[in-house]
């Protein structure tokens, strides 16, 4: 399993186990995720990839029956110890969801939402919003109607708005949970281009059902099956010569 990355390691996971009540959903996951790269998690539905993604910003805490064991470190800092402020962690590790979910507010307010609550100065917010929308590759399309409702945007624009909203909080890591599964191919390519652009400044982890998407945009790929991490390696290796038969069966579409 690779752990010697050109840009260094961002996330270190050792022996992570997770239970939903009695259901042991993740088994002894150990993986190192590289900095300033795109790492894709692939695997069939229910394999635990989304669950694992949600361990990285502790979104699983919202589920009462969920229990974890093991260590997750982000930039050398353990995130499952008692003294960690979850709210603070989620500022550092942003998340973009499957379904575009802008708030029912204006475009401007959506992006300003996080910085405002986190106490950004009033006169700084205009700049933050503009920068975030530019980094989210949306500025050109919305700069003349920042006060119109976010829900009037198209699905792809909404998703880029959600990315901009996450960027406005200035995270280190951005988790993408199947960000294109509700989008058409053109919007999908725009998001993919954006992700490739973002990896210069952020560490990206993306869960995707679309294997071609993983092949197109990721530097590293991890394959999950039934709660186990089966194989992790450079994307070019995983898609050309996977070592495990299960990986090969899955990425060639012969699974099940």
């Amino acid at each position, binding site marked *: 399993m690779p752990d010697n990355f050109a840009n260094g390691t961002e996330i270190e996971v050792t022996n992570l186990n997770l239970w939903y009540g009695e259901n042991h959903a993740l088994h002894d996951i150990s993986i190192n995720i590289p900095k300033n790269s795109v790492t894709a998690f692939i695997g069939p539905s229910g394999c635990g990839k989304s669950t694992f993604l949600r361990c990285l910003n502790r979104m699983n805490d919202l589920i009462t029956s969920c229990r974890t064991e093991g260590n997750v470190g982000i930039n050398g800092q353990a995130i499952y110890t008692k003294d960690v402020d979850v709210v603070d962690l989620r500022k550092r590790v942003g998340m973009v969801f499957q379904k575009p979910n802008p708030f029912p507010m204006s475009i401007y307010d959506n992006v300003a939402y996080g910085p405002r609550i986190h106490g950004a100065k009033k006169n700084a917010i205009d700049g933050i919003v503009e920068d975030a929308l530019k980094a989210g590759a949306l500025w050109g399309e919305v700069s003349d109607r920042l006060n119109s409702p976010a829900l009037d945007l198209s699905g792809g624009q909404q998703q880029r708005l959600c990315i901009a909203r996450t960027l406005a909080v200035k995270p280190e890591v951005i988790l993408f949970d199947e960000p294109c599964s509700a989008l058409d191919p053109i919007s999908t390519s725009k998001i993919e281009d954006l992700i490739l652009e973002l990896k210069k400044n952020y560490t990206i982890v993306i869960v995707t059902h679309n294997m071609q998407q993983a092949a197109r945009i990721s530097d590293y790929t991890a394959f999950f099956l039934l709660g186990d991490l089966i194989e992790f390696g450079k994307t070019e290796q995983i898609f*050309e*010569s996977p070592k495990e038969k299960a*990986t*090969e069966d899955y990425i*060639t579409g*012969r*699974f099940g």
Partner: protein
Amino acid sequence: MTRTQYQHNLDTLKRYVIEMGDKSYQSVADSMTSLNSLDVGLAEKVIKGDQIIDEYDLMIEKCVSQLIARQSPTAGDMRLVTSCLKMALDLERMSDLAVDIAKITRCIEKKHTKPFPNVLKMAELGKDMLHQSIVAFDTLDEELARRTAAKDDEVDKIFYESQKELIEMMSEDRSMINNASYLLFVIRYLERIGDHACNICESVVYVASGERADLN
């Protein structure tokens, strides 16, 4: 097993390559027989037969394009698909070489001595390598592919020996120059056939293991 249509397309592609391999083998074998027995009729058959092999080449190319465009093969499938394209190229070249040999049968002077044993030995080796490489592809037998490719050393050895013999022959007997120079071409072609068989063996190793081996 899912993706039935996809699997069917892959199976078809593989069958085309194996069939093309058989045809190319037949061409090479027939061209050598025609040369050995100076059978111009058989030589004409080989020359005409090249058309079928070109058709196979085209079919394989179409099949590969369709698979890439519509099924996005990955991993082992992707290695198979790209290798089939390469192997088709090698087989097509071998068949062209067989045509070249057959053309020499047409030109060579009847009164002249038949090809001497070393040339026939080279031909046997080349045919064998071609045959074994196709068997290795059919069964994705990496070991067989490596063993087969190793035989190329012997082909090369005989090639240099024969070359020397032919040149000596020409300097001893000036009347031999015409036919011997034809035979020089023949051994050159046979040597190339061995190289193409090696390429096929490399493709087989890549399909089977993902390793890009240099067996030549």
